[in-house]
């Protein structure tokens, strides 16, 4: 940011306004960095998966998933489509409020929330029907570890969406950039959840 022409003064019992030395909004930078750390957390779970599948599994020469287990690849694909759609609806919601379209914001957030909830419920149902438990093998431990970690993040994301939805209904957001951070930040988190699912899906179900 270019240096300001004059410096900000304090008012006795307020701090002086800090200089903005970057074009990036502090709170957006904060959520991006936090997502960076969450990506690394997933990285540790992917590492455990790599050890179980490649280092141990490949050495043994067994099939993956090990006999007699199977993964519901098609259903997970449907779930992937659901989650990707929810990212689009989230984007629509954010674009709506940027154009001062409150109805679009509320509709988009609601749709995103419902799609995300559907994803989570389908996942939960699959957990009960999948035919193996976390205690069985390293394969199942890493499977439930990765998908479970992701599910926990979806749960947090649903919470954030719910808070944003309540505030949207009450009219707390507006078209100016600093007036809809409460939508944008949950949106960024939700996109991270979506992209991470694609990585989890491809790694665990497809490859």
């Amino acid at each position: 940011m270019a240096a300001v022409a004059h410096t900000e003064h304090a008012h006795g019992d307020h701090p002086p306004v800090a200089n903005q030395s970057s074009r990036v909004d502090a709170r957006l930078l904060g959520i991006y960095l936090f997502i960076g750390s969450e990506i690394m957390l997933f990285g540790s779970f992917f590492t455990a998966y790599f050890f179980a599948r490649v280092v141990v599994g490949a050495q043994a020469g067994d099939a993956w998933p090990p006999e007699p287990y199977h993964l519901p690849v098609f259903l997970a694909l449907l779930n992937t489509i659901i989650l990707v759609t929810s990212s689009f609806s989230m984007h629509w919601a954010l674009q709506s409020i940027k154009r001062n379209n409150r109805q679009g914001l509320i509709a988009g957030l609601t749709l995103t929330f419902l799609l995300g909830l559907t994803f989570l419920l389908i996942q939960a149902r699959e957990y009960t029907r999948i035919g193996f438990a976390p205690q069985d093998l390293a394969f199942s431990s890493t499977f439930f570890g990765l998908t479970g970690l992701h599910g926990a993040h979806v749960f947090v994301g649903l919470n954030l969406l719910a808070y944003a939805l309540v505030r949207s209904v009450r009219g707390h957001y507006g078209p100016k950039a600093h007036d809809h951070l409460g939508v944008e930040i949950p949106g960024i988190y939700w996109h991270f959840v979506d992209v991470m699912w694609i990585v989890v899906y491809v790694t665990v179900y497809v490859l």
Partner: protein
Amino acid sequence: MIELHEHHEPEAAHHAPPGKPRGLRRLTAAGWLRVSWVAPLAFGLATGLVYGARAAMGLHPYWEFPVLIVAWTVIVPLAFLIAIGGFDYWFYWISGRPTRPEDHSGHGARSWKDYFRINTDHKVIGVQYVVTTFAFFVIAGLLAVFMRAELARPGMQFVDNNQFNGLFSEHATLMIFLFVIPAFAGLGNFVIPLMIGAPDMAFPRLNALSYWLLPVAGLMFLSAYLVPDGGAFAAGWTNYVPLAVEQPDGNLFFQMGVQWAGASSIMTALNFLVTIITMRAPGMTFWRMPLLVWANFATSTLVVVATPFVAGSQFFIMFDRVLHTNFFDFNQGGYAVGYQHIFWFYSHPAVYIMMLPGFGIISEVLAVFARKPIFGYRLMALSLMAILVLGFSVWAHHMFVAGMGPWLRIPMMATTLLIAVPTGIKVFSWLATLWEGRIHFKTPMLWAVGFISMFVIGGLSGIFLGAVPIDQHASDTYYIVAHIHYVLFGGSVFTIFAGVYHWFPKMTGRMYNERLGKLHFWTTFVAFNVTFFPMHWVGLRGMPRRVSDYDPVFGDWNMVMSIASFALGASTLIFLYNMIASWRSGPIAPANPWRALTLEWQVSSPPPIFNFDEIPQVVGSPYEYGVRGARHAVFNGSRAEVHEPEKVGH
């Protein structure tokens, strides 16, 4: 027309602090009174939850201790943080009600009580951090003294094997997670916003929360001693599997404590990064930042990227213990050495997290007390970045003898030796900074120069250990203990002392006693070397580490080291007395006792509540000592300029 952002209540201008709550409202107001009933309630709730859930699912036994411990260590700290007020603002936000605007009445510290509550002032948080971490330094140091008491003579005198294992495990855990890492966070918290000309950190409420996670984590680690069966965690701070999975339940306190300490660390690092990137004073480009800011920038990046891996490593142990999963059980397809890879992928960068801020502190202290610009400022900054990047490529040098695939050893050896290059650049630059400087050996300078020599010794033993053949002989011996302590005590702790003495006047508004400071340094320096240097020798001769007893041939040296370690412990008392007595009744400190150029010294000691009356304009480098007419920053309003004050005399 309703304001469409944050939706604050109509702002009352310049109002007085809200009145203290009366009657029953005192019990529901944020603070320790609320903690006193919420925390036990949460404890009961957690217990009931586990019992009820297990009963409902038909899982016998209902009182499953590991599950209870996990529930307690998650729910009770959370309840504590909520009760003390760490989440008040966010609960308002979640509820959809109008959030309360910050009226800043709670900002800063006017009495000692302000240090014991949620306080969003980075200066208060910095002091909270430093005091808390030194409390844990004393506790962890006492554990070390107990160890040395046991090791003074061959044979078992005071503790049994398991208790001894618990001693070294707790000692390292507390020193790493509750002293070195957060002490740098605390010093940085106090100094960095001032140094970059900002009124506070980017996220003050997050800052307060990240401090309060620390006593939580510390109490959690210490609570392991309360576990009746088998006692404290005793698998080392490294907590390798399969031992960690088979250990008594006290191990769970380590696993969860790491999560809380890690969360604290990550939150602080996020705060530092955003603050440094977005809140620098006008004119402070990255190349005009003091090196302490660069160092914390690099460290914070390390923390954000690496810490989640140690969280993951402890999650896997917890899952294997409590849920009986098989991440590490080879019979079920798990990979035990995988734990070490995941653990060390954090823990090697962790040692840089424990050192880089110290490098920054030393750069500040050397420039000020040698009255010279830092030699090679740009390369100093770039070498920090190089260490940051290379630090991720060396983790398996902790695993040369772990039984991992042999092909990994030579590459890891190469990267390990390579990382000596940027470190060496820094050491030589510091020496060049001292060259032909006007050196003033005040206490901070003693610690800084002492650091350089001790850290080089530790670095040299590190180079030896980086070579695979030598490590195969020296691994798990006292040679490693010597190396660790030269880089962590002679390295990190010396820089923490340097920083505390250096910024003591700024933080407390008082001068510490210089003679006691020098006495502290010299007693520590001598005792430290007598304690740890012989460890190189006994280690190479074959004394293993992490043992409560040893071959009698090592007895004499162990007696020497133990006596020296008692002296080392005693020397810390000098420091504690100096700090407490000086803070209470030391001479009042001027704004700039060291005639330094950086921005924190251009405000009063202690600084005004909002740091600056006006944000300064930075116009030059922060290290132009001895350069006539050089300016670091100007304050437009008062026409006061930040440049080296003329010293009367010489």
